[in-house]
């Protein structure tokens, strides 16, 4: 057992825990978060994805000790000041989910993808999202929603730029 400090969605949490525990179980069972979910425990499907140090990572194969001190964002932490992230907004406008179980992974992976590449091509979306599985097969709408989110984010950047100029 070790003392581990986690920084999740802007809040600090101190835990006494086995440092080898996968981050997923700590987020879900100790911190009560519901966004990241167990899908495979093998890092193959993406449903447990969180953003750690700016990258989308699979929390089911990430030991909690390796997240010590780093900022972790989960699905619950994407909205800012009560306003949904443009990716979430696009997901609603496009009515993406069927069962929705995988959508945490889809949204978090798409968010990290758009942070890296604000205007991805169709091929870049397919490649960037390829390891994130959906068994209701909502891929068609996910890809449309990522393009919509890119537009929403570009519009938000432009609006912010105008504000700065004004």
């Amino acid at each position, binding site marked *: 057992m070790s003392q581990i400090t986690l920084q999740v969605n802007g809040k600090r949490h101190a835990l006494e825990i086995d440092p080898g525990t996968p981050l997923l179980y700590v987020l879900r069972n100790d911190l009560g978060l519901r966004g990241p979910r167990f899908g495979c425990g093998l890092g*193959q499907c993406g449903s447990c994805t969180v953003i750690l140090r700016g990258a989308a990572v699979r929390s089911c194969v990430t030991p909690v000790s390796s997240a010590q001190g780093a900022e972790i964002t989960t699905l619950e932490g994407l909205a800012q000041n009560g306003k949904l992230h443009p990716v979430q907004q696009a997901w609603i406008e496009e009515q993406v989910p*069927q069962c929705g179980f995988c959508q945490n992974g889809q949204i978090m992976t798409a968010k990290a993808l758009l942070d890296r590449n604000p205007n991805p091509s169709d091929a870049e979306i397919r490649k960037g999202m390829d390891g994130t599985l959906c*068994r209701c097969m909502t891929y068609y709408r996910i890809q449309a929603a990522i393009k919509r989110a890119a537009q929403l984010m570009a519009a938000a950047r432009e609006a912010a730029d105008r504000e700065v100029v004004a």
Partner: protein
Amino acid sequence: MTNFTKVPQQVEEVLERQPDASRRDFLKKSGFLVVSFSAAAMGHSLLLAPAAGAQAAAASPPAGPYPDPDFRQLDSWIVIHQDNTATFYVGKTDGGQGTGTAFRQIMSDELDIPFEKTSLIMGATDITVDQGGSGGSDALETDGWPMRRVAAEARRVLLEMASQRFGVPVDQLAVSGGVITVKADPSRNVTYGELIGGKRFNVTLTGNNINATTGKAPIKPVQELKIVGQSPQRYDIPPKVDGSLHWAVDAKAPGMVHARNVRPPWAGAKLVSIDESSVRHLPGFIKVVSKGNYVAVVCEREEQAIRAARQLKVQWQKPAAAAFPGSEDLFRYMRNAKPTSVVRARSGQPQELVGDPDGAMAKAAKVIEAAYDYPFQGHTALGPAHAMADPSDGQMTIWSNDMKAYGLRTGVAAFLGMARDRVRVIWQEGPQLYGRTAADDAGFEAAYLAKEIGRPVRMQWMRHEETAWDVKGPAFTFNLRGGLDAQGNLIALEYHARTADYGHIGYNEPDTVLIAQLMGRRPAQPEPGGASGPSEMYYIPNRRTVTEVVSMPLVWESPLRTGNLRDPNGPQTTFAGESFIDELAAAANADPVEFRLRLLEASSEDDERFTRARSIAVIKAAAEAYGWDRRPSPKPRAAGTILTGRGIAYCYRRFTVVAEIAEVEVNRDTGHVWVKRLVCAHDCGLAVNPEALRRTIEGNLLHGLSRALYEEVQFDNEKVTSVDWITHPTLRHSDCPERIDVVLVNGDPNPNRPDLPHYGAGEAAIKPTVAAVANAIFDATGVRLRRVPFRDQRVRAALQSARA
């Protein structure tokens, strides 16, 4: 009227807590319940607030008993609140196809209340009537009707109440948006909430069974429906996107512990001994539970249970005989096996016989034959099976994503030997039902362990366990033979199918769920299994259709146990049927669309659902939407690495009719198939929410694509070897078509009929996809793939052997 003993006890408690003493007194005097506060106050996490769609948090369950709500009471279905909002209580579950939103639409429309002012609760066995949960795409097709009728009845009763209040006959009242107005004097009006808010209707409904439930009021003609046909956004999507939804995987209770199963390493293995000392020292260890060949480990924390299950030393005895042939040998085994039964045709005969197929075949100018093989396919849900069971107060409450929550309740009660009214199931959202959660293994396991341990237990399967041990869609072999006359008309067709469906498991039966099988509890006879033949309306004057069932060597405790997978036999039988029609079209040198239309138009006989007329309509609509150029397949051979082609397939599923066209690119060198475009013309009658329907169809099409291109359960003689996403590949983002066109068709000969029904839409579109892809590959390459799935290696081998 509801017998008072049938009032859920928690509702009484809710009444005790009501601040409004006069109302409480009134209700006490009336002796009946008000359920309007029950859902929120009871801590059900299912209550969706009218406008926001936010979910209330789960709380500890109140003690039972949990009697069945009476479906013959209007109050069991609809509650009007004082703020002029309504809550609907229905006995269904939503697999993510938006059926919950559709229920709110149809009920709001009949009740005449704005959609935004309604909320819906479903799948909680103690407060929603038993409509059986989900299955068979019957949500709107079957269960939607009583919902519409009870909502219409509530509107009628409210109008009568307003009539008494104003002293004006009902026909001189107008109702809109939950407000009733005197036509002659609009200043005189009253809201539903003012008339009955928080009070009971006390109206008894009639009907011999829940599907027949009705009041006195007629439902509205289609032309008067305002919310049906609109596409309000699905209320379940925002909480799925912002992380606020409480899923069944999130269920927690004070003192809850975690369990994991330890499965036999070989199918049919017998448990010899367990060395508990191998895990007793591990942190958080509580108990190893075992009975028969069922073994589970319970620990305080989840990761501890996973570790203990992995480390537990168990000695198993390998069965003497092979459990099944290896997957590479499966179809040879099935063709050589002695059938366990022949499926009775609708006529009750062991075969469906039309005309004289032998005589016609003998006279045919051309006879062609083909054999097709379709493997076992799994559900392989993205999230493995899971449930949480709380045994507090001598009751059993199970939080589950079981699509048939009501059956789980009955099954668990029987399995544990508990009275049915001591068990309740609270359905919550989970990963893809599609038939998997109709036999909720984890729900039974959690409940069993909770009873053993005396603490709330959360059970979750691991990935390898889910992929290997979930229920499977049965494998099939087919032999087809067709005779064409000199003009290329199809005059005879023989269809002979075999399905490895013996022992098909039921819905949450206490003797066929996996834990029961492993414990040695089983029915006297396995289910015989079966399938119907291809579902098309082709006029073929001479036909023989035979389906036989075969058994694997190991029937019980097998990871190849068959169950219902999204349209249980449709993708298989339609793959064979519609591939062969394409082969016949090619043999007749006919265009595949024209050949099918000719077979449909050869007769004018139709059924009461106009399946023939609607079949013709969807094929024409698909061809038009695609821009089909009429020519025989295959396409003249092109140069280059990438070959392109298009294929069509059509079928019906119950009353819904679909035609699909796939356009493919086949890489001649690698064998890789990319389905670049899909068109689906879909007639499910009245579309309640067209946008939600489109997305359901899109997902269904791609589910079919995944089964066409990738999915196959592989196994050796003793175990399933498909255990994760590497050994069991699935469709991915890079496989997604660049364009999908969904055309919603209303092919009814009288498209404006006021009673246009709403048919099921959850499964039909998956049915012809595999065949459409196979036909497109043939069009592109001239090579006919008769074995599913069309993985790169198999396609490359087929192309190479055709070239050689």
